[in-house]
C-alpha cells in the first residue's frame, strides 16, 4: 500500500507506537547520529550527509552481551535477556540489507542463534530511502540501491514536506494504519526521486570476476601494497554492518560468560594457544577482511558480503578506501575458470 505521511504528523505517530513497542531512531550523540530509544524529548536526525556512525546491527548483535551467568557451586543459568517488541525507524536500506545477509550466518539449519532469532522476530523495520545518497556509499555497485527494499516492513521516501509510505508487510501496514492513500501522481513523483538517487551513484568498482581475481592472487604482492598503511585497528569491521565476528569470554569477576564483538583485523583474533598465528601480519588480516566479503560470502551464500554503506571508507583513520583497493584488485591478472 502507498500512503502519505505529513512530516509534522511524524512525532505523534512515533509516540503512539511507544505503548506497544520499544522505538529506536537515529538521534544526535555528540557530533554524529546514533540509534537510541525514543523518549519524550527525542529528536529524529535524518539530515546528515550520511548514515549513523554505528550500524543498527548493534541492535541485533550488541557489542557486549551476557549469555550465561555462573552461579555458586559450579552451576549456571541463562542470562535471561528481555527482548521487547520493537520498531527500528529510519533504518537505511544498506543496513537493513546487511541484517538480512547476517541471517544466513545466525539462522541456519544446523544451528540458530536464539538471541538473534528472537530479536529478528520481534523487530519491525521502517526504512528511510536515501534521496540524497552519500558520497562514500556504493550500494548500487554491490547490487543494491538507495531504495532497496530487502528486509524492510515499510519504505519511506522523503518528498519534502511528506513521506511516501510503502508498506511491504502486514506488520508494517498495521503501524501506519489510518494514513491517507497516496495519489498515483505522488507515487510517480516518488519513483522519480528514487530513480534520480539511484542514477546519481557512480560505479565505484567493477564486481565482474572480482572474486576470481582475489582468489587467484591470494599470494600476490597486491595484499602487501594495500595493507601497508593499515594501522590494524577495528574501525572498519566494528562499524561495518555485515561484520559479525564475536569472541566469547568468561568474565569471572562478573560471573558471566559474555559475547563481545571481535575482528579479524586484530592480532589476537587468529592467535592460537600455542603462540602460532596463521595470520601473523596486517597483510594476511587485510586479505581476510576483503576476501571474506568478496570471495567467501559468495562461496557460501552466493552474495557479496558488503552492502556499500561506506562507513569503512569514511572512518578509516588512515584513509584506506575499500573502493580504491578493489579497483586496484581489478587490475590483477586472472584466468577464466571453465570448470562446471
Amino acid at each position: 500500500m502507498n500512503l502519505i505521511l505529513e512530516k509534522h504528523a511524524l512525532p505523534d505517530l512515533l509516540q503512539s507506537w511507544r505503548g506497544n513497542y520499544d522505538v529506536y531512531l537515529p538521534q544526535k550523540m555528540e557530533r554524529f547520529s546514533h540509534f537510541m530509544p525514543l523518549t519524550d524529548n527525542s529528536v529524529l536526525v535524518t539530515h546528515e550527509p550520511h548514515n549513523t556512525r554505528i550500524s543498527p546491527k548493534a541492535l541485533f548483535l550488541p557489542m557486549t552481551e551476557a549469555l550465561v551467568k555462573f552461579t555458586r557451586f559450579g552451576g549456571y543459568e541463562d542470562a535471561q535477556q528481555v527482548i521487547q517488541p520493537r520498531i527500528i525507524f529510519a533504518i537505511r536500506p544498506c543496513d537493513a540489507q546487511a541484517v538480512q545477509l547476517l541471517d544466513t550466518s545466525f539462522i541456519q539449519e544446523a544451528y540458530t542463534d536464539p538471541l538473534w532469532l528472537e530479536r529478528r522476530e520481534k523487530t519491525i523495520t521502517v526504512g528511510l530511502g536515501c534521496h540524497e545518497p552519500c558520497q562514500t556509499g556504493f550500494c548500487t555497485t554491490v547490487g543494491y540501491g538507495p531504495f532497496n527494499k530487502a528486509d524492510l516492513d515499510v519504505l519511506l521516501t522523503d518528498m519534502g514536506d511528506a513521506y511516501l509510505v510503502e508498506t511491504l508487510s502486514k506488520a508494517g501496514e498495521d503501524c501506519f494504519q489510518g494514513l491517507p492513500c497516496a495519489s498515483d501522481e505522488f507515487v510517480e513523483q516518488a519513483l522519480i526521486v528514487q530513480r534520480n538517487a539511484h542514477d546519481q551513484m557512480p560505479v565505484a568498482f567493477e564486481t565482474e570476476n572480482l572474486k576470481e581475481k582475489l582468489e587467484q592472487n591470494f599470494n600476490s604482492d597486491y595484499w602487501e601494497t594495500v595493507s601497508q598503511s593499515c594501522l590494524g585497528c577495528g574501525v572498519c569491521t566494528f562499524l561495518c554492518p555485515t561484520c559479525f565476528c564475536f569472541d566469547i569470554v568468561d568474565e569471572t569477576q562478573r560471573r558471566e560468560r559474555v559475547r563481545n564483538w571481535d575482528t579479524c583485523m586484530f592480532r589476537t583474533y587468529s592467535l592460537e594457544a600455542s603462540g602460532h598465528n596463521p595470520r601473523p601480519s596486517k597483510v594476511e588480516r587485510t586479505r581476510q577482511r576483503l576476501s571474506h566479503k568478496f570471495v567467501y560470502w559468495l562461496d557460501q551464500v552466493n552474495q557479496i558480503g558488503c552492502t556499500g554503506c561506506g562507513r569503512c571508507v569514511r572512518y578509516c583513520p588512515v584513509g584506506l578506501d575499500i573502493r580504491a583497493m578493489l579497483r586496484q584488485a581489478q587490475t590483477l591478472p586472472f584466468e577464466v575458470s571453465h570448470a562446471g
Partner: protein
Amino acid sequence: MPDLDAIKTEVRRLLADGVVEVVVAFKPGDTPLHPQPAFFHSPEEVDSLVHNGLCQNNLATFLTHLPKTKKVGMVVRGCENRSVNALIVEKQKSRENLYLLGVPCEGIIDWRKIVEHVGEAVLAVHENSDEVTVETREGQFNLSRNELLHASCLRCAHRNPISADILIGEPLPEGDPNLARVAVEEFESLTNEERYAWFQKEAERCIRCYACREACPMCYCTECFVDHIEPRWTESGATPAGMQGWHIVRAFHQTGRCTDCGACERACPMDIKMTYLTEKLNNDMRKKYAFEVGLDIQTQPPFATVTLDDKNRFSV
C-alpha cells in the same frame, strides 16, 4: 604553507642516493579529505607525495611497523619529530637509521568539521595560513582555518621539528606553552563528581576498536594489557568498567611519553576526547619534573628512571 616541490625534491634525492630505503610520508586518498600514509621506495613514486593540513596521522607510529635496522626517511612535523625522539629514547629505533625531513606545521584540520560545514561532496581543498577553501558541487566555501583545527593543534607549543636532518621551509613562530596548561586547568577546576561524569560520558562511547592505540606512536607493545588473558587486567567487553579501564590505563601508560599530537582523538570513530587525560599527565610531568618528552634523544621519562639518590623513592 609547506613547499611541496622542495619536499619532493629532497625525498627523491634521499631515495636516488640510497640515503634511505624507504620514505614515510603521505599520498592523496580517494577523496581530498583523507590523505593516506604512504611508503615511497623509489624516486619515480614520489610524484604523488602530498603534505597538507588534512594529513591527520602521526607518521612516527609506522616506525615500529618497519624493521629496526631499515634506513627510514620520514617527513615530520613538530609532534612527529618529538614522537620519533621518544621512540629513540625507548630504543625502538636508532638515530643513524633515520633521516628526518622536517616541515613546520600550522596545525591539522579536522575533516569532520569540514563535512559538518559543507557536506561530503568535497571535490578539492585549498588552504593557506588563515583560510581553508573547499570546493564542492554546490560551490566554493571559505572557512577559517583556526576554527577547523584539532584541539591539540590549537594548543601546540612545538610547531617546528626540533631535530630534523633538514628543515624544509622557514620556521614558524612557536605556540604559547601556557595554552596547554589552560586546557588542563579547565578540567582541574571541576569538582570530583563533575570530572568523573565527564570521564564516564567520554569513555562510555568507546567501542573497543583500539584505533587510538594503533594510531599512537608510543603504543607499540607486542601485547597490550587489554589483550592479556591471564591475569585479565580489565574487563574485555564494551561495559562501563571495561571502557573506563581501557581509557584510564591507556592514559597512564603514556605518562611522560605523550607528545600531545592528538592522533588518538583523530583516529577515534566515536569522537571520544582523550587528550584531556594525557595532557593532565603531561602537565604533571612538566610541573613536578620539569620534563617534556621528545626534546632530545637521551633523557628518559621520569617514570622510566630510578636512581639510588632519588629523594622520595616510590612517591611523587
